[in-house]
């Protein structure tokens, strides 16, 4: 199919582009402000007179890089990837079981899960801390990983995905001699890649950006996750309007997630992969 030739938009098109342009500016403005602020000195921030940095400087980034940023980055990666793997595995298996298997209490179990979805995470954080404390896991990454290893929201998402999953492909796998587990791992999971990637990205982002739970569970500086660590650095310089540090830290923390999204973007779009083996 040839690329359509761009024509001069009519007035309604101009209005639409104008609106989209303004909306884009509004969306990108905070990022632009963050970048510009991260390049300012604390004195410039304190004076608060200019938008653009008079003398752009990378001092904020230098301070952060001389802190334990690399340790905190590694900690965040470790916890986020561990939680993501556990979530993808368990949520997918649970969703598949709820969608495919008929067992006593299935409907009741699903309804209970839907009720639990409505309970905010903040409500369960203290009980979770108490359980972790009794297990002697406070101030360990395991406390974060185990308490975040499953997400009911994504169990529901995977259940809905598998309800619409073509059963004949699984039946073909049965006739090919696959056990239920083999069918799940060799056939179902590869075909569920768009849903798995979506789940992985959102779980990863959720863990990466989480602040409250690590603040509650982790107290050792060398075990801090990135948001905690950046917060600690910012508080260290709190008296000197350290917005440049906060903005630099925020931008650094966003980079890995942005990279992840850009890398996996095509898998979001490939939603019809599961139908290409069918009529």
């Amino acid at each position: 199919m040839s690329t359509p030739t761009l024509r001069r938009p009519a007035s309604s098109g101009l209005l639409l582009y104008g609106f989209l342009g303004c909306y884009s500016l509004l969306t990108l403005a905070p990022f632009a402000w963050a970048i510009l602020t991260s390049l300012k000195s604390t004195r410039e921030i304190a004076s608060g007179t200019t938008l653009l940095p008079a003398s752009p400087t990378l001092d904020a980034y230098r301070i952060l890089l001389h802190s334990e940023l690399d340790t905190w980055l590694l900690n965040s990666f470790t916890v986020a990837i561990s939680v993501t793997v556990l979530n993808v595995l368990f949520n997918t298996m649970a969703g598949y079981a709820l969608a495919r298997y008929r067992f006593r209490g299935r409907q009741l179990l699903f309804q209970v899960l839907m009720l639990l979805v409505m309970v905010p995470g903040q409500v369960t954080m203290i009980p979770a801390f108490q359980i972790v404390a009794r297990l002697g896991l406070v101030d360990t990454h395991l406390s974060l990983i185990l308490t975040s290893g499953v997400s009911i929201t994504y169990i529901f998402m995977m259940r809905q995905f598998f309800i619409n999953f073509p059963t004949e492909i699984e039946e073909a796998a049965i006739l090919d001699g696959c056990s239920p587990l083999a069918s799940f791992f060799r056939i179902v999971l590869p075909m569920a890649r768009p849903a798995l990637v979506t789940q992985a990205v959102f779980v990863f982002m959720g863990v990466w950006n989480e602040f409250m739970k690590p603040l509650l569970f982790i107290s050792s500086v060398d075990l801090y996750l990135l948001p905690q660590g950046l917060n600690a650095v910012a508080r260290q310089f709190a008296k000197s309007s350290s917005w440049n540090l906060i903005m630099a830290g925020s931008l650094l923390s966003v980079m890995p997630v942005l990279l992840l999204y850009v890398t996996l973007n095509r898998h979001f779009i490939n939603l019809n992969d599961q139908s290409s083996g069918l009529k």
Partner: protein
Amino acid sequence: MTTVCLRDIDLAYNGTPVLNDVNLTIEAGQFCVFIGPSGCGKSTLLRLIAGLETLTRGEILIDGVRVNDTPPAARQLAMVFQSYALYPHMSVRDNMAFGLTRQKLPKDVIARRVADAARILQLEPLLDRKPGALSGGQRQRAAIGRAIVKQPKVFLFDEPLSNLDAALRSQTRIELAKLHRELGSASMIYVTHDQVEAMTLADQIVLLRPHAGQGLPSIAQVGRPLDLYHHPVNLFAAGFIGSPRMNFLPGHVVCADAGAVGATVLGQPCRALVDGSGLATGAAITVGIRPEHIEVGDGPWQGRITHIEALGEHGYLHLMLGDGATTMVAKTGLEELRIGQTVRLTLPEAALHVFDADGHAQRRLQPRRHAAA
């Protein structure tokens, strides 16, 4: 060479009967077609044989061995699904090899079988493509290839041609018939709702009827294609087999013996060459005649043309007879006929079917060939 035997099979979902009292033998090497209207359970019966459904009662025997509790993969069957069910993340080669890999066959054996099947089905240029890059017909051949490589005792086809266009369907039908001859020893069980496929492919047709809950056996008739066409055993079989549908007219017996039945149909006398044993004088009957066997011109019945379907060389006349009865006639040379015109009809005695009050057919005595319209 494999025989499949179904004995006393019932299947119900949550108490709702789907299949009732199915008894059937599919002989070795036979091409057996399950046909019937939507919801009659033909795909369900196929899936029962495959082991993808659990029967409520009865037994399935393959080569005399009871397989009710045998896992699907161990029944030595191969199935081509209605939707092809190819694994979209695997190439055609890997799709075909997957089942053999699960059986832990040597790699050279797998490679040889895949190559042989690809050659038979002309899939060689497509082996490294994924299903998403194939056309409908190519996917269908890949699905058949996946079945062939298993060298099964029985092939199961669940409406494999239903989504192909007419030309491709016609061509693929011929290829399937050739495949059956080539493969020789394997039986094929084929589900379709298309009568042309059934009539042209089958060695044996199994006609299933819906409404298993009404106590009737699910199988209405089993036989060779032309047997079902010329000698339907009940009203359902007579009305389903043949396109367009057989015309049914109410009548009463005037006289009946083993050689013929004389009857009154829409006030006119007629004679049918059927065995009238068991029919009492005055008994209510249904007389059937196929549209292609009614003669237009002279005759005691009159019909007013209500609709004309011209299909080219031939077409169909829709007629209103006396007492509000309607009938359809297949005819050539429709150009001179007009809607509203009255025509006279003859119902040749050799073309008539007679059904008693319970819908059972009286045995026809006439040889199969008779005058067409």
